[in-house]
C-alpha cells in the first residue's frame, strides 16, 4: 500500500510536468509565438521588445523552459494581464463559489443515483427494466445550459419561486444566507441532474453483477428479503465503480460548471476561465487549466486510495486491478 501510494503520488508531479511542457510548447507554437500572444497582433515594436525583456522571451528557449518549470514548481503560475493579479490568487478567490454548487450537486446526485440504481436492479431471473439505459442516453444528451435555462423559465419566470440569476439579491444592503441559498438552488439542481444519469447507470451495472454473486443467495437463504439483501450486501460492493467514477469526473465537473455559471451569472471559476479566454488572458487560462488538472489528478488519487481501503482485493496487484 505504501509503495503503491508513493508511486501514485510521484505520478502527479510527472503528469504536471508533462502538461506544463505541452503548455510551454503550445505557447511557442501559437501563431506569432508568445510575444503576439502576450501583446496582441497590433502592438508596436517598442511594446514587443518591452514584453520580450519583461518575460525573458529574448533568452534561449531552453533557459526559458527551465525558468518556466522552476516558477511552476514554486507555485507561481504567472500574472493575469486582465486582472493584474497572481493567477493562483484569482483562482482561489473564485473557487468557493464553484465548490458551493459542485459539492451539494455531487451529494444530491449520488443520493438520487443510489436510489435509482437500487430500484432498477431486479432479482436474478426477474424481468429487466429496459427503459433506464434509454432514459440515461437522453439525460446524457441534455445540454446543461439549456436545462438551466428551462429551470429558470419554469421556477423563476413562470412560478416566481426562485431568483433568476446572481449570487445575492442586489436590492439587499448586506448578503444574507437564506437569500444566497435561494440563488444556489437552481444551479445545484442543473448540475445534479446532469450527474445523476451517469452515476445511476454505473451503479446499476455494478449492482447487476453483484446480485448474481453467491453471497446474495446466502443472504436470501438467511431470510432477508431481496430489497434488504440488496441494500445491506450488494450496495457496499457495488459502490467501488461509483467512487472511481467520482474521482475520474472531478475535472469534468469543473468544466461542467462553466456553462451553469454562465447561465446563472455566478462569479465562479468557470466564468473566470471564459472571460480569460475571451480576453486572451493566456496566463490565467493556462494556470486555471493546470490547477484543474492538478485537482483532477488528486481526485483520481483519493478515489484510488478509497477503493484500496474499501476493497483489500485491489491491493494484490498493486492497486492495478481497476486499470487493467
Amino acid at each position: 500500500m505504501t509503495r503503491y501510494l508513493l508511486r501514485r503520488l510521484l505520478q502527479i508531479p510527472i503528469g504536471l510536468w508533462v502538461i506544463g511542457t505541452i503548455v510551454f510548447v503550445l505557447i511557442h507554437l501559437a501563431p506569432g509565438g508568445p510575444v503576439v500572444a502576450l501583446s496582441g497582433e497590433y502592438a508596436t515594436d517598442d511594446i514587443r521588445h518591452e514584453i520580450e525583456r519583461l518575460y525573458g522571451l529574448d533568452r534561449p528557449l531552453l533557459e526559458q523552459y527551465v525558468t518556466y518549470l522552476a516558477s511552476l514548481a514554486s507555485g507561481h503560475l504567472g500574472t493575469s494581464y486582465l486582472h493584474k493579479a497572481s493567477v493562483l490568487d484569482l483562482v482561489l478567490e473564485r473557487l468557493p463559489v464553484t465548490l458551493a454548487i459542485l459539492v451539494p450537486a455531487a451529494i444530491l446526485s449520488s443520493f438520487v443515483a443510489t436510489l435509482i440504481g437500487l430500484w432498477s436492479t431486479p432479482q436474478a431471473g426477474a424481468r429487466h427494466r429496459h427503459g433506464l439505459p434509454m432514459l440515461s442516453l437522453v439525460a446524457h444528451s441534455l445540454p446543461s445550459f439549456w436545462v438551466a435555462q428551462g429551470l429558470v423559465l419554469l421556477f423563476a419566470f413562470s412560478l416566481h419561486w426562485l431568483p433568476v440569476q446572481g449570487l445575492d439579491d442586489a436590492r439587499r444592503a448586506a448578503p444574507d444566507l437564506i437569500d444566497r441559498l435561494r440563488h444556489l438552488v437552481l444551479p445545484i439542481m442543473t448540475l445534479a441532474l446532469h450527474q445523476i444519469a451517469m452515476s445511476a447507470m454505473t451503479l446499476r451495472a455494478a449492482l447487476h453483477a453483484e446480485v448474481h454473486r453467491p453471497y446474495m443467495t446466502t443472504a436470501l437463504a438467511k431470510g432477508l428479503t431481496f430489497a434488504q439483501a440488496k441494500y445491506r450486501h450488494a450496495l457496499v460492493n457495488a459502490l467501488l465503480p461509483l467512487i472511481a467514477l467520482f474521482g475520474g469526473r472531478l475535472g469534468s465537473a469543473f468544466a461542467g460548471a462553466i456553462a451553469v455559471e454562465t447561465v446563472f451569472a455566478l462569479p465562479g471559476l468557470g466564468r473566470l476561465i471564459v472571460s480569460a479566454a475571451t480576453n486572451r488572458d493566456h496566463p490565467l487560462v493556462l494556470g486555471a487549466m493546470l490547477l484543474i488538472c492538478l485537482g483532477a489528478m488528486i481526485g483520481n488519487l483519493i478515489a484510488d486510495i478509497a477503493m484500496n481501503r474499501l476493497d483489500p482485493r485491489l491491493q494484490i496487484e498493486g492497486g492495478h486491478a481497476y486499470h487493467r
Partner: protein
Amino acid sequence: MLITANRPGPLAALAPWRRRSGRVGLAMLLCLAAIALYATAFPELHLGNPALRAPSLRHPFGTDDLGRDMLIEIARGVGPSMLVGGIATLTALAIGAIAGLIAANGSMLVDDLVMRAAELTATIPPLLLAIVLGALFGNGAVLTAIILGVSFWPMVARVVRAAAFALRGEAFVLSAIALGRSYTSIAFHHILPGVLPIALSMSGIIFGGAVLAEATLAFVGLGDPAVTTWGQTIAHAGGFMHVAWWLWLFPGLALVAACVGVGLLTDTAHAQ
C-alpha cells in the same frame, strides 16, 4: 465502461436498422436532415419576418427578435453540429484504435507508456482543452472538432486495448503468428476488424460529448463566429426567454435529437 450482457450482438453498431432503437435513431437524424433540406429549399423564408411570433403554420418554430424564422435558423445549425461531431468522432476513433492496438501488441513498457498517456489525457476535460487551445490557436469549427476528438481518444484506446487483449489468444491470431505474419500485419488484418464494432459503439458517446462541448463553447461565446450553431442560437434566446419560450425550446430539442439520434444509431445505451 461495462459491456452489459443484453447487447444484441457484436454487429449491432454496424447494422442499426436491424434494431428498433437503431430505427428510431435513424428516423431522428432523417428528421434533422429534412429540416436542413427545407432550409436550403426555401432560403427566402429566413429573414424579414415579423419579430417574436409564436409558432404557427407559417413559422412552425416561431420567429426571433430580429424576425428570423427559427425553423430555418435551426436548420442552418444541422450541418456545423454534424460536422463537428463527425470530425471529433473520427479523430478519436483513429487515434484511439491505433494507440489501443499499439498498447495491446507492444511490450510492457510501451503498453505502460500509452496507458499513462491515456490517463493523463483523461484528466483534462475536453471542454477545458478546447477553451485553452481555442484561446491560443483560434476558434475555428474544424480545429475545435479535432481538439475535442483528441481529448476523447483515451476512451477508445482503453476499449480497443481490452478487446485486442481478449482476441490475442484466439486460434486465428495464433495461426497468423505461426504463419510468420508481422505484428503490424496481424494487428491491422486480424485484430482491428474484431475490435472495430466495439470501438464504433463508443462513437455515440464521443459524438454526443463533442457536439455538446461545441454547443457549450458557442453558448459562452467562444465558438466559431463564422457559423450559426445551436449553442449560439440558445445563447441568443436567453435574453428573450421570458417572452418567447419557443426561442429556447426548439434549438435545444434539435441538439438533443442529434445526440440521442446518433447514440441510438450506434447502440450507445448498451455500451455504457
